[in-house]
């Protein structure tokens, strides 16, 4: 199967052909995949070199002139290095852009911590007005990329990962999907962690919600789910553990509830190796998830 990132250049190339507002800004990374479309639209496929502050600032300038910039590089260099550019050049100026990241939390473990960004969503969460898409499958990535570019001048973040579920679901760019229904609690699985969550909750009497758009957080669907089940919520996120705990608390502010936030640990693992090894080390494989969900929900969950 191809990866989400394999879809990025073909999808955005078609959008460049279809919509004269679309422009792509790159900082070397991913450039080769845009060479062909760059010949057709040399002024709308822009490579600024290895300059990430300029990457985001130039994207803002393009937006100032009415274009719809799609800005891409690895998450560490897109969100963390030029964070003030995201905050000021886009947010404070009242401008939008589509930021599309690759490498996610640990897509290239052998590359080490410099190329890992488990904190990207939490960092963006300090800013107002960002929509955050976390697709769990290349088909979903394609859908959500199109949604993001089509979203007028909104501020959109699309997080592409090599981690993926076996099959795509019909995501709509807004709502959580109800994948399984039960009574003992609600498990919210984000993006590529749906597969492990479904395996982990096999035979448990729990509702499983699937979230691929995590900001804004779909409080309506979560509330609805907790009306049919115990208001014990487990969040399983492919980035920093607990990133969406406050969103769950806000959604259930008037309901006595418990929430367990699972995800990537804060401590730097300082290991290379394989994605699967990192998934297991952070307790995000099906077996570890089962233990932790079981421990949180207790015997009630077992049918």
């Amino acid at each position, binding site marked *: 199967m191809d990866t989400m990132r394999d879809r990025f250049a073909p999808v955005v190339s078609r959008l460049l052909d279809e919509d*004269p507002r679309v*422009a792509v*800004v790159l900082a070397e990374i991913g450039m080769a995949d845009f060479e062909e479309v760059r010949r057709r639209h040399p*002024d*709308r496929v*822009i490579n*600024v*070199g290895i*300059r990430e*502050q*300029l990457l*985001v*600032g*130039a*994207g*803002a*300038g*393009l*937006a*100032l*002139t*009415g*274009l719809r*910039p799609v800005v891409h590089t690895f998450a560490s260099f897109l969100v963390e290095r030029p964070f*003030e*550019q995201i905050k*000021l*050049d886009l947010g*404070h*100026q*009242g401008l939008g852009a589509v930021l599309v990241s690759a490498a996610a939390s640990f897509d290239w473990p052998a590359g080490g911590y410099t190329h890992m960004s488990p904190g990207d969503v939490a960092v963006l969460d300090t800013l107002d007005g960002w929509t955050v898409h976390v697709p769990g499958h290349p088909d979903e990535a394609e859908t959500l990329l199109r949604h993001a570019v089509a979203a007028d001048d909104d501020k959109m973040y699309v997080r592409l990962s090599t981690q993926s579920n076996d099959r795509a679901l019909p995501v709509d760019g807004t709502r959580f999907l109800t994948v399984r229904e039960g009574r003992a609690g609600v498990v919210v699985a984000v993006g590529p962690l749906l597969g492990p969550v479904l395996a982990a909750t096999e035979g448990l009497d729990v509702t499983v919600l699937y979230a691929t758009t995590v900001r804004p957080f779909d409080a309506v669907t979560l509330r609805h789910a907790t009306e049919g089940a115990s208001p014990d919520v487990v969040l399983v996120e492919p980035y920093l553990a607990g990133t969406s705990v406050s969103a769950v608390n806000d959604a259930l502010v008037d309901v006595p509830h418990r929430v367990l936030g699972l995800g990537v640990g804060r401590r730097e693992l300082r290991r290379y190796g394989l994605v699967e090894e990192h998934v297991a080390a952070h307790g995000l494989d099906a077996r570890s998830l089962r233990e932790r969900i079981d421990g949180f929900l207790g015997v009630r969950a077992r049918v």
Partner: protein
Amino acid sequence: MTTTTTEHRQEYGHGDRYDRYEALTGLMELMSGDEKHGPAATSTLDALWVLYDRVLRVGPDRADDPGRDRFLLSKGHGPMAYYAVLAAKGFVPVDWLPGFGSYDSPLGHHPDRVLVPGAEIGSGSLGHGLPIAVGTALGLRAQGLHDPRVWVLVGDAELDEGSNHEAIAYAGPAGLDRLHTVVIDNSSASWARPGGIAARFEAAGWSAATVDGRDHEALYAAFTAPHPGLPRVIVAQVEPKDS
């Protein structure tokens, strides 16, 4: 200028036009209540005036015109001269000026594009204007708008920010000849560039000129000199910050 504070007040009282250089000091006085203005506020005054009075094709009546020139004030601190020029040119009402910095005023100690008519960007954190200006030049070019020119004003110490170096290094080889940078050089950088500011830009493929930042004719000539195929920088030297 030798006009006294009292005379300025009387001029306003008699409804004189503000659209002239001589009115700017009085307009700034409305913000500070003080005849003396900080170096950061006045260092930009002459360059701003020459730009808005003679160079930029902008106006309150064409704020949304895609074909207008763009002026991006990157050096957002000490914006009194900027507000005074915007008031003189009719972008903002003169009666906004006395509220400068107050809770209900759109005019802060750093400008906000969302609040200030005519302000193309909000600024205050140094090093953001030039990269945004690069993107603006790219965006205009991508839409076939080859006529509008993009101007950005920075301070000499602001050039210390690495984001500016990214923009300078890119704009020259990219041939962004619609892009113009005005550097107000009041010798405020702690670690000045060996060889001077213009040399830094020239090494990156820019057309460069260094002029007396108080001399309106010299500024105008430098602002309007042709620079085919190259972005242009004008270093406007004014009295040192601490003088």
